[in-house]
C-alpha cells in the first residue's frame, strides 16, 4: 500500500500547481526572445568542455512535487545536460551545451513557475563561512577530547598518567590552535601592526600564553596544564563568530535572491541593422537602443521614435506616469510602460543618473561608518583593563614572593579567566535570535550593528511613493460609477498595462464582463480607443477623449463618440496597516514625510495621516534634511524604496526598505521588509529595543562573572578545573539569556509564507 506522501506528490504531478498556487499569471513580461537569450548567455558561465551553467531564481518552489516539476521540465529541453533544484535557496542550476540557450524561463512559466536569472557570477562564494565551520568542527573535536583527558587528570591520575595525558593534550592542542585559532591571530596581528587593539588581541594573547605555559608545565612534569582552557575558549569564541557570520550572510543572500530586476543589458541596433544584446557597461553614448514595453531604461537616453508612458516612481518619487514622445529625455532606471521605444543613448552607464545616485549614496554612507558596534566599544575598554590587571598581578606576586614561576602562572591564570568568551557570545547570540524573530515576521536584517542603531532612533522619515503607499493607483469609489460605464471601461482597460487601466480592471475583478470590444488601440500619453458595435469609445485624458473639453483634469474619462459617460479618479493606495502602524509610532517618534512627488499629492496623504511633510525633494535635499534633523541630536530612521531615497537611506542612522524597492535602495537599507504591511516598522523597532536590553543584560552578566572570578584568580586560587567550570558556565548563562528572545510570543507566520509574499510583491511590481 502506498503511503500518504506518495499519493500527495502524484496528485501534484497531474495538476502541477496544486500546492503552489502559481504567481505566474501576475508577472507581465514582454521582453522579446532575443533579449532573453542574450541575457541568459550574459549571466551564464562556462563550466568546461562546451557546457554552460545558468542559475535561475525560482521563488515559487515550495515542495518535493515542485522540485520534480521544475527538474523534469528543464531536463526535457533539447541541449540541457542536467537540471538540479536547490529547495533551500529556491534556485535551479542548469547545465546546457554551448549554443543558443534553451527557453528556460518560458518553459518554467508554462509549468507554472516564475523564474528570474540569478547572477551567480556576481556572487563571491562564501569561503569565509566554510572556513569558520571547519575551524569550529576542529575546535569542537579537540575541546571534547582534551576535556576527557583533563577530567581524568582532575580526578587524580597518578604522575606518569598525568604527564602522558598532558602530552597527548599538547599534541591535540597544537594543530588545533594553528588551524582554528589562525583567524583570531591574523586579525589580532593586523590590529597590532596598525597600532590598534581589538577583541582578538586579548583572546590571542590569552590563548597563546595559556598554551605556552601548559607546554612548559608538561615539559617540567608540573601539575597544572591549561590545554583544555585554551581550546575550549577557541571553541566558544568560534561559535560566536560563526553565528555572527551566519546571520549576516543569510540576510545578504536573501536580499540578493529577491530577484535581480535591474536590466543587465539592452538590445542595441547596430549601424548595419543587426540587433545585438549588449551588457550595460558596453553601451556608449550615441548607440541606438530598442526598448520593449515593461523594460527599464538602461542608460540616460533620448527618445527618437515611438510614444509611450513612463513610470519614474522609483527614480523621482512621482506617482503618476508621464508621457514620452520623440525628443523626451529619459533617465536611466525609469520603467517603460506601454509601447516599445527607440532610444539614443546620451551617456554611458558610468555617467548616467543611476551612477550619480550611487556616488551620492557612497558619500552619504561615510557618515554612518563612524558608528562603532557595542562589542567593539566594549573590547576597546576591555583589553587594556585585562592586560593591566594581569600585569599588576604579576608585579604584586613578584614583590610578595619573588617566585617568578608562580607570578607568571598566576598572571596567566588571570588572563585565561578574563578571556572574553562570554563577552564574545553576549552580542551575536542575541542578534541571531533577533534576526530569526524578524525573519519570522518577514523582515530581513543585514547586520547586527543595524539592530543596535535601530534601537537608538527617535525620529522617523518616510518616503511616500512605494513606502507609505503601495505605488499602485487605485480607483476611488467605484460604486459611484454607473455599472454599465464601469463594465465598458473594464472591457477596454484589460487591454492595457498602464497603471490606471490595471486599477480599473482590478476594481472590477468581481464581475467579469462578457463585453468584447473590437479594435482596441492604445495612444500613449492619451488613452485607449475602442469600437463596440457602431460606437467609438475612448478611455483616457479628458482633453483627448472628449470632443469639447474645457477641463484639463488629472482623472480619466470614458467617452462614447466624444460625449462623456463616466469619470474615474485615482489615488495612490496606502499600504495596508499604515494607519495603525503610524498611530503606534506617533506616540514615541517624530515623524516626517520627504517625497519627490508634487505638493498636492503629498499634502493629501500627509493630511490624511496627520504628518509633517516636504514635497518635491531631490535626493540631495533628502540627505540634507536628514543631516539637519540629526544635527539637532536626533537619530533618524529612514524608510524608503526609490533610487532617489538610496542616498537618504545610507545617510540616516538606520534604514528600512520594502522588498519592492529598487535594487540600490534594498542594498542601501539595513532592513528589508517582505510583507505589504507597514507594521514591519514598529515591529522591527520594538524587537531592536528588546534585543538592546538583552545585550545590555548579557554584558552585565559577563562583566559580573569577571568581578567574581578575577579576585579569585589574582589570589592565585585558580586551577585548570576552576577555569574550565567558570568559563563554560558564564558562556551558558549568556546563551540562555539570549534564547529568551526567541521564546517569547511568536507571531505565527512561517518562513514559507513570507517567501511567497516576496515573490508576489515582486511580480506585482515587475
Amino acid at each position, binding site marked *: 500500500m502506498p503511503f500518504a506522501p506518495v499519493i500527495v506528490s502524484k496528485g501534484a504531478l497531474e495538476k502541477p500547481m496544486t500546492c503552489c498556487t502559481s504567481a505566474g499569471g501576475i508577472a507581465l513580461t514582454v521582453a522579446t526572445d532575443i533579449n532573453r537569450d542574450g541575457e541568459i548567455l550574459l549571466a551564464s558561465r562556462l563550466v568546461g568542455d562546451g557546457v554552460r551553467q545558468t542559475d535561475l531564481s525560482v521563488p515559487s518552489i515550495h515542495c518535493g512535487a515542485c522540485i520534480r516539476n521544475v527538474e523534469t521540465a528543464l531536463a526535457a529541453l533539447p541541449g540541457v545536460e542536467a537540471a*538540479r533544484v536547490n529547495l533551500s535557496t529556491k534556485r535551479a542550476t542548469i547545465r546546457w551545451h554551448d549554443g543558443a540557450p534553451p527557453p528556460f524561463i518560458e518553459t518554467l512559466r508554462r509549468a507554472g513557475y516564475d523564474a528570474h536569472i540569478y547572477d551567480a557570477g556576481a556572487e563571491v562564494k562564501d569561503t569565509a563561512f566554510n572556513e569558520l565551520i571547519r575551524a569550529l568542527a*576542529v575546535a569542537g573535536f579537540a575541546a571534547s577530547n582534551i576535556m576527557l583527558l583533563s577530567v581524568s587528570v582532575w580526578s587524580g591520575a597518578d604522575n606518569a598518567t598525568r604527564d602522558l595525558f598532558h602530552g*597527548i593534550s599538547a599534541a591535540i592542542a597544537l594543530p588545533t590552535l594553528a588551524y582554528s585559532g589562525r583567524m583570531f591571530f591574523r586579525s589580532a596581528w593586523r590590529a597590532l601592526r596598525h597600532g590598534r587593539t581589538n577583541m582578538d588581541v586579548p583572546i590571542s594573547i590569552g590563548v597563546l600564553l595559556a598554551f605556552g605555559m601548559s607546554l612548559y608545565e608538561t615539559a617540567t612534569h608540573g601539575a597544572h596544564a591549561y590545554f583544555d582552557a585554551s581550546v575550549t575558549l577557541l571553541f566558544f569564541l568560534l561559535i560566536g563568530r560563526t553565528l555572527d557570520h551566519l546571520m549576516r550572510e543569510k540576510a545578504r543572500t536573501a536580499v540578493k535572491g529577491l530577484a535581480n530586476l535591474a536590466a543587465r543589458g539592452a538590445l542595441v541596433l547596430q549601424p548595419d541593422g543587426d540587433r545585438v544584446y549588449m551588457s550595460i557597461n558596453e553601451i556608449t553614448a550615441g548607440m541606438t537602443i530598442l526598448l520593449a514595453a515593461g523594460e527599464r531604461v538602461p542608460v540616460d537616453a533620448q527618445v527618437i521614435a515611438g510614444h509611450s508612458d513612463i513610470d519614474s516612481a522609483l527614480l523621482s518619487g512621482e506617482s503618476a506616469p508621464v508621457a514620452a514622445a520623440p525628443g523626451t529625455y529619459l533617465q536611466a532606471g525609469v520603467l517603460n510602460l506601454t509601447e516599445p521605444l527607440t532610444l539614443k543613448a546620451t551617456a554611458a552607464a558610468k555617467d548616467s543618473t543611476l551612477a550619480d545616485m550611487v556616488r551620492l549614496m557612497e558619500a552619504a554612507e561615510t557618515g554612518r561608518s563612524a558608528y562603532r558596534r557595542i562589542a567593539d566599544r566594549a573590547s576597546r575598554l576591555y583589553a587594556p583593563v585585562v592586560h593591566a590587571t594581569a600585569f599588576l598581578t604579576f608585579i604584586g606576586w613578584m614583590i610578595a614572593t619573588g617566585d617568578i614561576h608562580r607570578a607568571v602562572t598566576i598572571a596567566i591564570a588571570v588572563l585565561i579567566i578574563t578571556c572574553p568568551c562570554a563577552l564574545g557570545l553576549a552580542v551575536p547570540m542575541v542578534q541571531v535570535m533577533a534576526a530569526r524573530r524578524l525573519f519570522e515576521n518577514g523582515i530581513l536584517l543585514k547586520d547586527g550593528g543595524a539592530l543596535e542603531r535601530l534601537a537608538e532612533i527617535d525620529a522617523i522619515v518616510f518616503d511616500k511613493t512605494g513606502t507609505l503607499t503601495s505605488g499602485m493607483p487605485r480607483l476611488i469609489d467605484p460604486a459611484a460609477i454607473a455599472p454599465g460605464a464601469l463594465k465598458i471601461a473594464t472591457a477596454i482597460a484589460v487591454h492595457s498595462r498602464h497603471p490606471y487601466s490595471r486599477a480599473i480592471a482590478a476594481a472590477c475583478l468581481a464581475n467579469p464582463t462578457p463585453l468584447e470590444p473590437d479594435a482596441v488601440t492604445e495612444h500613449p500619453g492619451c488613452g485607449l480607443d475602442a469600437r463596440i458595435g457602431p460606437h467609438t469609445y475612448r478611455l483616457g485624458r479628458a482633453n483627448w477623449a472628449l470632443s469639447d473639453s474645457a477641463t484639463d483634469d488629472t482623472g480619466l474619462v470614458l467617452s462614447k463618440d466624444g460625449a462623456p459617460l463616466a469619470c474615474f479618479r485615482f489615488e495612490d493606495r496606502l499600504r495596508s496597516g499604515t494607519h495603525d502602524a503610524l498611530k503606534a509610532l506617533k506616540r514615541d517618534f517624530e515623524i516626517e514625510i520627504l517625497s519627490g512627488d508634487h505638493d498636492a499629492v503629498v499634502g493629501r496623504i500627509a493630511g490624511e495621516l496627520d504628518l509633517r511633510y516636504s514635497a518635491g525633494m531631490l535626493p540631495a535635499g533628502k540627505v540634507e534634511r536628514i543631516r539637519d534633523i540629526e544635527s539637532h541630536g536626533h537619530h533618524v530612521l529612514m524608510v524608503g524604496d526609490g533610487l532617489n531615497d538610496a542616498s537618504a537611506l545610507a545617510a540616516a542612522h538606520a534604514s528600512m526598505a520594502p522588498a519592492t524597492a529598487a535594487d540600490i535602495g534594498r542594498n542601501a537599507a539595513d532592513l528589508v521588509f517582505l510583507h505589504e504591511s507597514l507594521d514591519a516598522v514598529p515591529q522591527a523597532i520594538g524587537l531592536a529595543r528588546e534585543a538592546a536590553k538583552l545585550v545590555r543584560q548579557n554584558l552585565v552578566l559577563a562583566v559580573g562573572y569577571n568581578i567574581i572570578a578575577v579576585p579569585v584568580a589574582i589570589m592565585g586560587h585558580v586551577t585548570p578545573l576552576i577555569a574550565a567550570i567558570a568559563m563554560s558556565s558564564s558562556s551558558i548563562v549568556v546563551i540562555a539569556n539570549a534564547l529568551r528572545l526567541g521564546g517569547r510570543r511568536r507571531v505565527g507566520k512561517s518562513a514559507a509564507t513570507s517567501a511567497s509574499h516576496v515573490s508576489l510583491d515582486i511580480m506585482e511590481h515587475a
Partner: protein
Amino acid sequence: MDDFLFLVPVALLLGLAGLGAFMWALGNGQYDDLNGAAERILLDDKDTPL
C-alpha cells in the same frame, strides 16, 4: 596504565574519523540543500547530484 595505550588511541581515532566524515560531507556539498534532501526522499526516480 596498559589499557590507556590502546584505549586512548582508539578513542582519538574514532573522533578523528567522525571529524573527517564531517569535513568530507561539508566539502561534498551534502549540507547545501537540507530542505531539498528532505523532500527528495519522496521522489522515486534516479537522482544524481549535479
